[in-house]
Structure formats: C-alpha cells, structure tokens
C-alpha cells in the first residue's frame, strides 16, 4: 500500500532586489516631489496665515514674516520690533537693514531686477491692519514695488 507523500512546504523566498528597487524609486519620487528652495519662507509653526481662493503660485524673492510683534526680513534675518516702523526716526537696526537692502538691490542682475523688487509678506491672520500697513509702507519706501501677501489655499472654496 502506497501512501501519498505530501510535498514538503518550502519557505517563500522574499525577492529583496525588487523591494529595494521599489523603495529606491519611492525615495527618489519623494525627494523630487518636495519643493525645495523655490520659495523659501520660514513660517513659524504657531503662525496662522489667512486663507485665499487665489490660485497664483508664490514667487521667489525677498520675504518678511510678521509674527508676535516682530518683523523678520529674509535679507538679514534680523527681528525688528513693529513699533520701530512707526517711529519718526529710524532705529539703528532699521538703518543697518536699509543699507543691506540697498546692497541687495545693487547686487541683483539686470534680468532679475523686476523680481527683486517683489516682497512676499507672511503675517498672522489676527494681526491688525495698522501693523501690516505700517510695515508695508516702510518697505515700499525702501524700494520694494510689488507686495505679495502669502496665504493658505482655501481648499473648500469653489474655484473658477
């Protein structure tokens, strides 16, 4: 009497090469999919930006962050008190910053001059208009022509 011999169960071999390929592709995809450096605005984690239905893309250039009564310009990364922008006489910090802005304008190439005169403004949505206006007015006088307000895309709003 012959008994049927069940074949031995063999352990499955994991195809590691294929898995490494997949992981490598995912890593490359994630790295390339992330936008680095095009628009470099360091938004504080506690800052709440206003929402907008605008579909325009941010442009590279100079930016200011207005948060907790401090203004930080991307050219020198120095925090300046909002009150300094209202004072009749410019503070030492603002005078130093003005020189840096002038140097920045001089150092930009002719073809980049238009975008160098743009300034992106990232400010907390709860900030008073007075604070925003005084700061913008100051930087307009300093030579920035176009002001771009940074906002979060309003996902729930209907688009055109």
């Amino acid at each position, binding site marked *: 009497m012959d008994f049927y011999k069940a074949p031995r169960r063999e352990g499955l071999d994991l195809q*590691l*090469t294929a*898995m*490494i390929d997949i*992981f*490598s592709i*995912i*890593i490359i995809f*994630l*790295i390339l999919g*992330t936008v680095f450096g095009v*628009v470099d*605005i360091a*938004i504080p984690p506690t800052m709440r*930006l*206003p*929402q*907008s*239905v*605008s*579909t*325009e*893309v*941010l*442009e590279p250039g100079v930016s200011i962050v207005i948060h907790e009564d401090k203004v930080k310009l991307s050219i020198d990364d120095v925090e300046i008190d909002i009150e300094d922008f209202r004072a009749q006489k410019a503070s030492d910090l603002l005078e130093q910053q003005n020189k840096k802005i002038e140097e920045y304008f001089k150092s930009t190439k002719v073809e980049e001059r238009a975008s160098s*005169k743009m300034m*992106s403004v990232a*400010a*907390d*949505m*709860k*900030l*008073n*208009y*007075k*604070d*925003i*206006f005084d700061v*913008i*007015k100051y930087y307009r006088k300093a030579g920035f*022509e*176009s*002001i*771009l*307000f*940074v*906002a*979060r*895309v*309003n*996902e729930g709003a209907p688009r055109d």
Partner: protein
Amino acid sequence: MSDLFEIKRKREFRNLNIVPILDMFTTVIFFLLLSTTFINLTKQTVPPSGVSTVTDPVAPPPLNPKIYLVNKSDQEFSFIIKWAGSKAGAKAVTFQREDLFQAPSKNEMFNELAFEEKVKPYLEKFKESYPKQKSIQIGLGADVEYMFLSKIMDMAIEFTPDVVLVSYNEADALGRALARR
C-alpha cells in the same frame, strides 16, 4: 622560494547584507514623509502703484472707487463702498461681529461665508454699474484684523484686477464720521 610561487587565493564574492539596507530605506521613507509639511500656499498681489494722466478735457472724472471696513463699535463692523465720478455714490452696511465668528472666544473662527454673503452683493452691484473699472482701493480700520483684508481682496480681485491699499487713518476717519451720524 615558496613565497615566490604562492598560490593566489581565489577572490570570494561577499554577499551583500540587504536586510539592514532595506531597514535604512524604510526609515528614510518614514522620515521624509513625517518631516514634510504639506501646506499649499498662494499669494495675493498688490502691484506697484501707477500714475495716470487724463489728457482729454471732455472725459468724465475717474470713479476712484474705495472699499472700507471699519470697526463702528466694539461689536459692529461697517463695510462701505464709495465712488466719485459724474454719478458719485456710496453704499454702507453694518453687521455684528458675533455674526462673523463662530464662537465668541479668543480663538474664534472666522466665518468667511457669512462675511461674503453680507458684502458680495454690494461689490456685484458696483461691478454691474461700472464693468470697465480696473482698479479699486481698499482700506481697513487700524484695529481690523488682517484676515479681512485677504477676504476683501479675494472678492475685489474678481471684479477689478488692481488693488491699492489705503491708510487706516483714512478708513478710521470715515468710520468716525459714520458713527457720529
């Protein structure tokens, strides 16, 4: 002598230990995913101010439309749209602050839809009357929150491509005059 004729050892292929590489890749993926901040940012533009000269003496005076949002009192906002020109006019609407915020707390949520419903009809009416108008000036009271500027710009840009910001002093002066009436 034996040193001279030493038999070379066969080169052995080392097996690459793939498991730690795989571990590393998995960690990197999680690190990348967790460290990435997914915020979709956009912008609203206030273009450089332009100066135009009217050379035609018969041309009608410019409309010079202006939008103001001022605090009428602690609990009330006034939205005003006024324009000059041959048929100068103004429209104003007052609404309660509590109608625009979902909870009367410090972290109150701004109800954008409620604000839009109150304000948009006035802008639409203005646009119907003056479809060729290309710029509008916006001014907020000194204490009015910045998020209102963003919302008004969103609505105004639908009608006029150019936006000019007006000082809060002008807006507050108008607000005071309105409160006196």
